[in-house]
Each structure stands twice: as C-alpha cells, then as structure tokens.
C-alpha cells in the first residue's frame, strides 16, 4: 500500500496534523488519528449522515471524503460546538426538546442542522424536515429534533445579528 502522507488541517479552530495512507477516509482519520470520536460512522456510503461535519463551513459527509482531500481545510466537528464549557444554543435546544435518545446520529444531526440554519436562518417546518432528511435517526421519530431546530433558529439569528461569533456560527460558505 502507498506510503503514508502528511495531512494538515484546522479542526475546531486548532491546527492539527497527522500522517495516514492516501486511501484513509476522513472520518477514520478524525476518529483514529486525531482521537475525535464524536463523529460517528453509520453507513460508509453517504446516506445515514451520522458522520456529517462542516468542511469550510458547509456540511459534508466525512465517510465520502479521503483525509488527504481535507488537507488545508477548516473543519468543525461536534467536539467544536461547545465554547467555554457552555453548550451551543443548538445543543441546548436538543437537550431541552429531547432531540436525542441514543445519541449516535446526534453529531451528524447537529452539524446538518447548523448548516441548514446558516443557509436558511428562518426555515419553515417543511424546510427543516427536508434539510434534516439528510440524516437518519431511528430513535426519536424526528419530533424532538425538529422542535429543537425550530427553537434554536431565532437564537442563532439573534447571535448572528448581534455579531457574536463562536464556533460553528454562520461564517459564510468556504470562508
């Protein structure tokens, strides 16, 4: 197999570096080489969405990218949402509205919802459901998740208009 290559990228605002085989999936690189096990693997064929992360601010499937493709990229994973020990408003809304049970799809669901709210800060319920259909959840029937995203939307709009930055907040596509 080909020799390992260096991968340098920014994850959750921190410069990170590792060496891996060119064929290594980004999700495996995050989990195994960077010990960021919050990003989960559910299908490895891009349907379930559990491995969704933000690459350059946009939602992407970490199981459909190679680590080497992420060289130089800016990545946000679920570990980067909380700041200073305080849950991100979206995480807080998931907690309040019972938007998770087993928690396995939750990281992908959170980052997908964040991307949705960046593109559509005032989504209708149908738009939320359409946006979240990129991630499969088998526990919740999606009810609590939809409620959580509805509840988080105005909070995030307020944050954005107040100029308050923070990890995972809308930054515009690809920087």
């Amino acid at each position: 197999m080909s020799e390992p290559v260096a991968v340098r990228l920014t994850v959750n605002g921190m410069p990170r570096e590792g060496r891996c085989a060119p064929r290594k999936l980004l999700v495996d690189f995050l989990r195994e080489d960077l010990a960021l096990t919050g990003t989960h693997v559910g299908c490895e064929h891009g349907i379930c969405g559990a491995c969704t992360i933000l690459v350059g601010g946009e939602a992407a499937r970490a199981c459909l990218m190679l680590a080497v493709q992420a060289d130089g990229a800016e990545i946000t994973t679920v570990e980067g949402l909380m700041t200073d020990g305080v849950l991100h408003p979206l995480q807080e809304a998931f907690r309040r509205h019972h938007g998770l049970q087993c928690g396995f799809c939750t990281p992908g669901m959170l980052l997908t919802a964040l991307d949705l709210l960046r593109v559509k800060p005032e989504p209708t319920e149908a738009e939320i459901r359409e946006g979240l259909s990129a991630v499969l959840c088998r526990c919740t029937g999606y009810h609590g998740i939809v409620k959580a995203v509805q509840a988080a939307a105005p909070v995030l709009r307020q944050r954005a208009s107040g100029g308050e930055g923070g990890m995972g907040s809308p930054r515009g596509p690809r920087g």
Partner: protein
Amino acid sequence: MSASGWIGKPVPRVEDGRLLTGRGNFIDDHPPVANLCHAAIVRSPHAHARILGYDLAAARAMDGVIGVITGADVAAACRPFGVGVTTPVHYYPAATDKARFVGEPVAVVVARDRYLAEDAAEAVVVEYEPLPAVVDPEKALEPDAPVLHEKVGSNLAGHRRLVYGDPDGAFAAADVVVRERFRFPKYGSTPIETYGVIARWDALDGVLTVWSNFMGPFIMHPLVARVLGLPENRLRFIVPPDIGGSFGIKSSIYPYLALIGLAAMKLGVPVKWIEDRREHLLASSSGTDRIAWREVAAREDGTILGMRFKWLDNVGGYIRSPEPGCSFRPTGNFVGPYRFQHLEVDASVVMTNKSLTGPNRGYACGHLYFETERMMDLLAARLGLDPVEVRRRNLIGVESFPYRTPTGGLYDSGDYARTFQTALEVAKYDELRRDQAAARAAGRYVGIGLALAVDPSVSNMGYVATALDPQFRAKPEYLPKSGAVDSATVKIDPLGRVIAILGTTPQGQGHQTIVSQIVATELGVEPADVTVVDEMDTFTRVWSISSGTYSSRFGSVGTSAVALAARKLKAKLVAYAAHLMNAPAETLEFRDGGVHRKTGTGAAYSIKDLAGRAHWNTESLPDGMEPGLAATAVFGFTGARAVDAEDRVNSSNTYGFIAEVMAVEVDPATAAVTILKYVTVHDAGTIINPMIVEGQIYGGALHGLGGALYEELAYDDDGQLLTGTFMDYLVPTASEAPEIEIAHVVSPSPLTTLGSKGLGESSSMTVPAVIANAVSDALRPLGIGITELPMTPSRLHALIQTARAGQPA
C-alpha cells in the same frame, strides 16, 4: 416536594451532556486494551452452497495480516448454539459445511488495521458448490424444495398446534366466519450504530473478555460459553455505557461474540470488529416475514366467539435463539384486548435461504395485531357495523382486571374502553367520519383506521418453551424455565454522595435519568445529587439469565429493583438514626434528605451526617447492624411461571394498552399515502418521565410506519438481497415522519414497585395495523383491502390499477 417527588416530571436527561458534545462512550470509540487488531469477515456470496475448501495462502501472506480462521476452525473448536426447538439444526457462529444465506460468515481475517484486513478478506478464496435456493416459506415446505439442513430432513424447524378452549365448537356456533390471508414483511430496525465486538483472550488465566454493544438477554452468556467450551466464570461480557440504538436487533449479536472471541483465542491477539452497514443489512437480524391465515367466528351482533391463527414464520437459514419467539413471544396476549375464549394457533417455523431473524421492536406483536386488527375491520364490514362498535363489543371490561387470558396471560391493570374512548375523542372520530363522507363525495380516497393492542412488557423467559411439545416438557430430564428479574445497588459514600449501580444495557432509553429520579424521590435529594453507573459487566454486576434491556423491561422490572434498593437503604438509615437518637424507629420518618422525628421536633440527621458517622465510626452502629451503606435489590415477578401442560403461559409480566386512530388520503395517481391525522393513546401505568415516554412513542410509531410503508429486506428468487444499502432499504426520514397526537390514561400496575409498565416497543406494534386499516378504508370504494405490507407505491398502484380495470367505466 410531594410524595411522588420527581416521578412524573420531564427531568432533562443526564445522558445528553456527553452525547451532545461528542463525548459518548460507544463500542467503537475507546479501545479498552492496547495493540488491538482488526477483523474483516468473509461472507458467502451464495444463498445456498456447499463449502468445498479454502485457499488462505495469499491472504495470510499479505502485509499486516495476523491470521485467518475459517468455518473449519469453528467446526473443530466450537459446539453449535443451543436452539429453541428439538429439530437437529446445527447453528455455528460461521458456516461449517454449507452456507445457507447470502452474507453468512465463512472466515475471519485479522490484521493490523481494518483496511488491511479488508484487503486480505478479498484475497481469501473459498471454493463453493452452489446449490438451489429457496426463499419463500410456502415453497420451502413443498416436497421438492431444496433442503437446507439434511439432518432435519425438511425445512420445517418446528411446528405447534395450540388449542385454547373449544375453537371447533365456537366456529360451529358462529353466525358468521370471516377468513383472510396476510403477508407481513421482513424488516429490521437498523440502529445507526452497527454491531461492534472486541475480544481479548488471556491464555494464562484462561479468561475471554468480550466487550460489545450486546443488549441482553444474558441467557446468551452461558450459551456462548458453551459454544466456546469455556467455563462460565472464564467468560466476561462487558457492555460500554452507550449503545447507539438497538430496538431488539442487538440481542442477536451474540454469534459474533463467539466468532470474534474464537479469533482472539486462536490468533492470540485482541481483536476488534465493527460491522459495516452492508454487513448489517445482509446478516444481522430482522423480524420474520410471515404468511398468515386468519379466521374469526362471530355472532351477528359482533361478539367474537373464537379465532384461528395459522402462521408460516420464516426464520431464514437457521433457527437462532430466541426464535421461534416470532410465533410464541405474544402467547399470553394472543387474544389482544378482546374477551373471546376459544383459539387455535397453528404455528410453523420455516427455514429458507434468507438472513436470520430475532427480536425486532414489538417482537412479533406487529405481526399479531396487523392480522387481528385487519380482521376486526373485515368483521365490521361483513356485519355492517362501525369498526368502533365491533371492537367495543368485544373489549375486556375494566371490572375484569387482573384478567387471566385463555392463553395464560395475566393482564395486570387497564381500562381499555376508556382508553379507546379517549383516542376517539382526541381524534374527533365522528367529525373525521363526516369529513371522510364529504371527501368521498368529492371523489377523494380518504380513510380512517383504528387499532387496539395490548402492549406486553418484561418477557417471562418461560415463553420460549411454548415451542416445545408438552410431552417433551413433561419428561423428567426437562428443566422448566421461567423468570423476569433485574437488580440494582444503591450506596452512599462517606461524603453522603448517592451512587446507583445497574447492570442494564440502555440503548437510548435514558436509564441514568430515570434512576436518578427514582433514587432522588426515595431519598429526598435532587436527581443531580445521584450518580448513576450503568455499565454491564458479568464479572461485577448482580445479574441473571433474564438480565438485559429488551422487551420494554426497564420501565417495569428495572425501576422496581432500583426503588426497592433505595427503600432498603432508607430503612437502614432510619434504623441507624433511631439508634443514634435513642428513639423507636416507628417514631421517625425519612424526608427531605434526612431522618426526622414524626413530631417534627428535636434534632434530625441528614444523609451526609449519617453517612459520615457510619463510615468513619462503625462503633456507632447498633449491635447486629452490618457495616456499610449499600443495598442491593433483586426484583422478580412471581407471575413469571413456566408454560403449563395446556400451553398456557404468562409470556410477559406487565401489560399496557394502546388505542390508535389514523386518517389517511391515498392519491390514486401516485399511490402516495398522506397521513391526515394520527392519534395514539397509551396506558403504561405510572409515568416516570413523560418526556422520555413521548420520545419512545414517537420513535416506535416511526418504526411501525417504516415497516408499513417503506422498509423490506427484499430478496430475489435466488436468495440475493436486493436492499443491501440505505439507497435501497428505505428508512423514514424527517420528511416522512407524521404529526402525532399523544394522550395517556394511567392504570398503575399492581405488580411493580412504582406502578409503571414498559412502553419501549409501543406504537411499533400498532402502526402497521392502523395504517393498513386506514388505507383499506380509503380504498374501499375500489374494493381494495390491504393484506400485505409494506404498502409501497408500486404495490398500491398495482392494486389500484387492477381494481379500476375491473370496474365499469
């Protein structure tokens, strides 16, 4: 704080903090041992084939490969798993002589990492002699069908004819008899976290430690020990605190505990295997596909006199325990919520070249109630009665509880008529019917469906023996089985901190939260003051054969054990305080986190105070009091008895009730089904956390909807799986999830410590019935009645086209 304390409050979940921030501890997250090697499993591409040999040289020579084990190693080292029938089905953790379904493991490659293991798995050469396959359970019983297990001689794994009361008499006395044939599809719950196993063999101590996301029942522990030839005290199962969903499916991981365990033993390295999604869809587990013939005997007024069930349950290539639970798990609640006394059940369990089956949310109750509730509507139509009326006339009355069913079930509590009435009122049933009439007049296909179900929780291990002939069970060497127990320990450390320790295996049900609510209520502290440790370890936890988190048992048996343990500890604190206060214990009471005089006067002792004294100064304990502040309770249901000679068994221990109303519209052009209204009313006894309960109902309902409309593990005639990815196996997304109106009726269980019952499977067992009834009602003008699921657009469209072709223009 009221007497009910934190019970009934939507307390936010303890689990959420770690799960929302990426700090969960799932099987794939944290290697428990160093130098893990990784397995890839070689699987049969054939549905039915004799294995002629293996060529492992190329694979073994590859970079990073530690070794390969094959079915030949399995045959040499293992005994077959015990099965739930007396037919000689030899089921091993991997194919030994023949592969009997696509995806059956035939070899395991272990390498330094998973990528290398998969490379080497590609290089394993298995020589097969393909054999004819059969996937349809009816065809599998034809005389010229290919036989999967030569030693069995046919594909019939088991057959029982159960007779309760006098069904022949009931049918002879009937004014009307209604008959129908149904097909229920094979589907699973596809938890988003797949199976995962890590095994370490300690050759010096002879201990095999297996970490996995196995959910129980822990009857599988002695089963796996026997397969591997290990003494039970040399096999350790550990389950990490977080499991990424299961819905029954992860009970069937146990063959892999043996297979990966064997790889670790043979190759001398710790081995990790994480199932991928394709493997999961090919070869994990699902419910059975079933062909059912139903007959109902009734009087003209709608009173049901008796029923006949005839089933062909397809368990796939082998019958894997706890099958044939697919037929018998609901034995005690075969009659559902209805009063009739005469029943005949003819259950055949058939093996075909499909993947294996096992518990899947609602374990066989989705099948049962789909058939029964469709029959109720057919009976109503035959008699010209409203479907509400025909059900009302047959419901078990509130005065009859506790109610002994003719099949041995003991329904502990309920008010079925009131719960049903609540559902009708919430749904505004009469208004729905008026709207439907207007819609029909306008040429629209709008229908209303009903479904009622008794929701069984906490399986009694004893039900599995219903599969065995009574003559076999009567033999002196036969050992009866029964039981449904769970345990919990509550302890107080020297600083007064309360810790509860469980051996359950939650998969998202929020046990830590529920336990903190119960213990906080019992001890008069805040839930946040209670630390709950919930990690199963067969070496350290108090457990039993029936332990585990399955069959909706925690809300009933687990919570009872926790409350009892807290009460035991509380009694000890009161006795200790009585000694310190030199007062009779009966003059004291436990409240607000301490022991007080009932008069409210004088000094009180807080938990912290008592804990400090008890731990630091054992001399202060009264004579005869055992030192230490810990109490363990094991709660078991006394009603969990072995199946009797007449095949009667109380197959579960608490029984809730579900009443549902759904209105749908079917678009005749696209065959799309739109849910206009869906109401579900549950009676699960005392509710401990309404937020968690609602979550279970939403999730269960969507599982039922998936099975009714979208999901099917579909095979072609050669036994090739057609739905091997999430592109083909369609899981409902947020866009398909309907609005649900939920209401509750509360009939506390007299059998549990808190009056609660299980509810985890909930509407997964009613939605297939309620939506099939609604769609049938919608399409009634076309003469269409649903007898087969899933109601995919293509299937419905074909029905509509055929019906329209047969109608005058």
